[in-house]
Every structure is written in C-alpha cells, then in structure tokens.
C-alpha cells in the first residue's frame, strides 16, 4: 500500500491511493467552550439539504453531549473498542490507524451502525459524567462534567469513506479538498458508512445510495461560509482554508489557529483520516478523556485558551468566528479591532476586541415606560 505523510500523527501511514494534496483544504475551527447546543446549525443544514423523504434520520450536522451522547449511537466508542486506545510517543502516533490493520483486501477498520442507532440523535443530552451529591451544585466546583460536541463531515485529508468505496464513487475536490459522493455513481453498498470513523456518510432509503455533508460547496464556490457556520448562535465556528502547498501563513486565520498556534485540535486523529474540523478542547474536562478525543496537544491548547485575553493575535483570529457570511482568508489585528478580508480583497469583518456598552436609563421618557433587566 502507498505511504502518505499524516502531519497530525507525525509520521507516514498506509493509504490505498496516492494523490497530491488539494490546492487548499477547507477547514473549520469549532470552540467547544462556547457551544450551547441550540442545534441551530443542525436545523440550518437539515432545512436546506436533508429535508427530503428518505432523510428523516439523516443529520449531516449534529451536536451531541459528551461523554455519553453520540449520533449514531456509540459511533466513536464502538470503533475504539475495535482499535483499542491510541498511544502517542510525544506527538507521534505509535498505534495503527484504521488503514493499517485490515490488509488490502478489506476496507479500513470500521463498524456498521444498525438502523436503530440513528433514531435517537439526542441520546445522552446534557447528561453529566455521574451523579453528584445533593446540594453539591451550590457548594462550589463539583467534579462532574459534560460538554457539547458539534459534528460535521471532516473533509478529511485521507478520507476513509473514499478509501472504502469499491466503485471510486467518492472523490476529494482538488480546488478545496471537499469530499463528495458522486450521486450518479454510488450504488448504495454502504462501505463508506462502515468505514467513516465519524459516521458522516449516510444511507438514504429512497435514493438507495449513500450521501454525506457536501461542505455547502455551492456556497463555498461563491466565497460564502457553510450554512451551519453562518447560522451558529454561539459563534463557535470559523470557516476557512488551510494552506496545503507551502508554509502556513500567519495572516490566514485557519493556518494561524490550527497549524501555527495549535490551539484547535483534530477529532480522533489516531484513526488517520486527517480530519479538518479542529476543536478547541473544553477547558473544564479532564485530559485523560480529551487526549483520546483530540490527541496529545490538549494541555497546551487548554493553557493557551486560558490566557487568550493576553494573546491578542490569537484572540483576534477567534473573534472572526461568526463575524461574516463571507469566508475570511486574511486577517490583521489593528489597534482595538481585528479585520478580516475575503479572497477578492473585500473587507468583510471588523470586530472590536471590546464590545461597546450602552447603559440606558431605567425610565424611557419618550415611550413613557420603565425598562426591566430581564437577563
């Protein structure tokens, strides 16, 4: 099997195909510390792309509560039960990826969810890790935790879905790295469903073919961010491109946050697909759990995040989340603002570090009403 360098693993790994990296790679930063699990992203995606018959239990975007939630049910722990836990030596993965255990006559290591596994997308919602003593919530910090994990297709560098398809009906676009299933060629074998470690390809019973998040490519082609990004209430999402051919650029917000500062980390990098949704780990969750999810960079990322207030360049890049419908490819911190520019040079975002505060009088003389603080 050909070898490919996987920068997230610090080593080469087996992958069934050779291909140069795309001209640039679509990528996202999701700040788990800010997600409120409002599911606006889920609804935005579903209303636009998956509201047809046959797509009732298909959510290209979903938001689940960790540690117990998962859509489809136990999507991640069932694979971990097969692969065993990841082990790293420094920043190099020593355990095998999903491409390195099955030989060349079987698709990557994976598992097939049953149909019922899709029918409770919100299972485990808001559940914390254990019960707490009566009254503990009022007596300070208690050790139980949970957090929200928003998930879409990772438009992976080395997609397992693509590697598993015996018809080569899945392709990675050269212009932006978006991974698509050719809806004309797919014959519904569901090999991609079995192989994707993130379970982000789905079988549609009306199409009798598989489908997946299309990365909102018609919008990306017009320089617009994905619907799930634009609609995000918590402004946790930043959509852009990683540099693939050449050094990361410090003025590219995605390069800066992901590649240069390593504040945001890939989800389950040990599977080897090179996922391109990068998560800022939740600072209140123990590292033991997080390191299986996000790899060895967790503690450094948490430390950086806690010091964000003094890190204006990094904070500036993050302030671009939810600041524009246009994809920002260049940014600059200027005085008390961060500016973002679209590909064509248009200034599309100007965000102050400190939001202006207006204090209004308790009594409104114009309308003859009293204002109440309801928050």
């Amino acid at each position, binding site marked *: 099997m050909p070898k490919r360098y996987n920068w997230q693993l610090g080593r080469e790994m087996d992958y069934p195909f050779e291909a140069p990296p795309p001209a640039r790679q679509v990528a996202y930063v999701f700040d788990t510390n800010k997600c409120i699990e409002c599911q606006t992203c889920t609804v935005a995606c579903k209303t636009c792309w998956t509201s*047809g018959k*046959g797509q009732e239990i298909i959510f290209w975007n979903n938001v689940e509560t960790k540690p117990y939630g998962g859509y489809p049910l136990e999507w991640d722990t069932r694979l971990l039960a097969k692969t065993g836990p990841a082990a790293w030596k420094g920043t190099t993965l020593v355990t095998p990826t999903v491409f390195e255990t099955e030989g060349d006559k079987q698709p990557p290591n994976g598992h097939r969810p049953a149909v019922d596994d899709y029918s409770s997308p919100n299972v485990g919602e808001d559940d914390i890790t254990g019960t707490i003593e009566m009254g503990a919530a009022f007596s300070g910090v208690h050790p139980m935790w949970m957090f929200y994990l928003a998930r879409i297709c990772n438009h992976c560098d080395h997609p397992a879905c693509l590697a598993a398809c015996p018809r080569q009906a899945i392709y990675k676009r050269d212009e932006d790295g978006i991974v698509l299933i050719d809806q004309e060629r797919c014959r519904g074998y569901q090999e991609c469903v079995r192989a994707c470690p993130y379970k982000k390809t789905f079988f549609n019973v009306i199409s009798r073919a598989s489908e997946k998040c299309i990365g909102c490519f018609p919008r990306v082609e017009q320089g617009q961010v994905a619907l799930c990004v634009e609609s995000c209430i918590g402004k946790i999402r930043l959509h852009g491109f990683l540099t693939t051919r050449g050094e990361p650029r410090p003025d590219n917000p995605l390069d800066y946050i992901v590649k240069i500062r390593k504040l945001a980390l890939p989800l389950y990098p040990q599977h080897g697909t090179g996922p391109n949704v990068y998560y800022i780990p939740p600072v209140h969750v123990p590292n033991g759990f997080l390191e299986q999810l996000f790899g060895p960079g967790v503690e450094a990322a948490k430390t950086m995040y806690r010091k964000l207030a003094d890190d204006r360049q990094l904070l500036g890049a993050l302030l671009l989340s939810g600041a524009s419908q246009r994809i920002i490819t260049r940014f600059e911190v200027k005085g008390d603002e961060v500016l973002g520019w679209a590909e064509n040079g248009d200034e599309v975002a100007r965000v102050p570090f400190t939001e202006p505060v207006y204090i209004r009088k308790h009594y409104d003389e114009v309308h003859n009403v009293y204002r109440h603080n309801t928050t």
Partner: protein
Amino acid sequence: MSTATTRPEQGSGPRPWALVAGGAAAVLLVAFALIVAERGLDRGAGRELAELVERHRLQAETDGVFFVPRVERAAVPVDPLDPAWESAPSIIVKLSRQVDAMPILERATVSSAELRALGDGEWVVWRLSWPDESPDMNVDSGRFCDAAALQFPVSGEAPHTMGDDRNPVHILHWKALWQKDVDEHFQDVQDLHPNYWADLYWFADGPAPYRVPDDFSDPRSQQWFAAFSAGNPVSDIYRTRPVEELSATGFGSLTSHRESVSDGRGVWRDGSWHLSFVRPLRTEDPLDAQFWRGGRGTVGVAVWNGGDGNVGARKHWGFWTAFELSP
C-alpha cells in the same frame, strides 16, 4: 466489437444422427415438432433441422458444454416456477467467495446454484435457483437485499472477474428489492418504518405520510432526491423491471445501460430463490453480448445473500460456464 457467443461454423460436416432418450431429448423432440408446425416446414426440412440440432447437442455434450434447447415461443416459460423448467436441461454452477478484490466476502453461505435455460431462436430465458433460507427483499442502513447476476463476455477473452479494460462483460442484474418495487410498489420509507412521520416535505402534494413517487410529481419536490435527479439508475422511483443491464471492464467499473431490453422475475419459494432472466439473442446495442442460434458462449453467475451482509463485491460467484444455443 467482437461477440459473446462464437458464430456457429458454417457447413460443418454431417455427424451420425442418434435418438437419445431422456428428459432433455424429449423436450427437443417436442420442440422440433413445434418449430416445424410453426414455420410450416415440410417434413424433409423439419427432419434436416432436427438432425442438425441433435448433432449440435451431441457435440456439446461431448465437449462438456451446456446445451440450450429451442422450443416454440409459447413453450418458453418466463415464470421461474413454471413446471416446464423441470424438464429443461440443468447444470450446477459451483460458487465461491469473491476474494480477488476489496472488499472480499468473508463467509460463504451459498455453495452452488442451478442454471437452466430455454430459447425459441429469438429469445433465451435463463432460470437460476439457489437455496436461501429467508428472503431479504428490502434495504436500509446496514440492511441488504438478496440479488443475483449473470454475466456474458462481450468478447471471448474477458476474465470472469467482470472483464478487463479490453474485454468488457455484459451483466444482467436482478435484485429482490426491485422485484418488490415491481410486484407491490416502490419501497418507501413507511414500508420499512410504518410509523415514520414528517410534517412537511417541500412541494410534496398528497395526504401524509406522502408516498414516493405519486405525491412527489412536482419537480421541485424531487430536489432532495439527489441521486435520482442525477440520473442514478439505482435510485429510479419509477422502476418497471426487476432486472438491470450493465457493462463492466473490471472491478469497480459497473455501468448501467441507458437502454435495456432484458427482463425477468424472481420468486422465493420453500427455501430457494428462483429467477428468470429474459433477453433477446440479438440487439443493436454494441454494449450487449450477442448470441446466435447454434453459437457457443459462456455465462458467469453471481449470488448475494443480503441477510448475511452481501453487497457489491461481497458476493458469491462462479467461473465461466460454457453453453451452446440450439441451432
């Protein structure tokens, strides 16, 4: 493009004529009589044809080639359960796991299939039977249906592994799901999950829960049928036949024919599937394997046990079986 059945040799020398008793021969004799009657041939011509047919049959037998007799059109059974099949010649095709290409079939559940065939000089009907304890006729996430296929080389040298770059194969593919679509109605969400409910499907018109295809005739309502809109043949919501024609030039190259003249029917009865594949000997389509009266060819068989997760390359298949069509 070259041809699947080799043309019969012209003017091959006379061979001794012999009457052979037995089921197959009985079918043949009836057949000759019918052909003679149908064509109004005089006794002499009828006898000559009968002699020619028998010569071919004997030679095929000597060569170990499966001989496909010719009967009158009305006597060709299209129903796979027609008792007439019992007296048609049969051959047992050994099947094994597909282990040449990713993904391989890990476990075999079918070891052989029985193939029978009859023709009328213009059409040939293949009857395929194999044991399967339970019929799997629908698909869902992680759920697959039973299926079978016959393949014919479009040129003589095609490997049984679905042909290669220079030697395409022509495939007739039947799926239990498509049979159910045709026999009952397009298998919809509620056929799998009766209680599924959605308040709204954009632009669908009809009573909830909205049936496909009837309530989705507005083209705007079909926007979410992405694979159907892209023309994917597996996503046809207006399917009328359970058999699809395809071409292949090796693994992963399967391509549906836009034009298809093949048909068929599958029936599960008493622990076995029985299928008929019906197709004309000759077509205008250069992608099709062509057959001649008195010509030889090869056929390959593949069987999928949906209940055991068989799908795509995860299948049982056999090597080529040589056959000869009656002159």
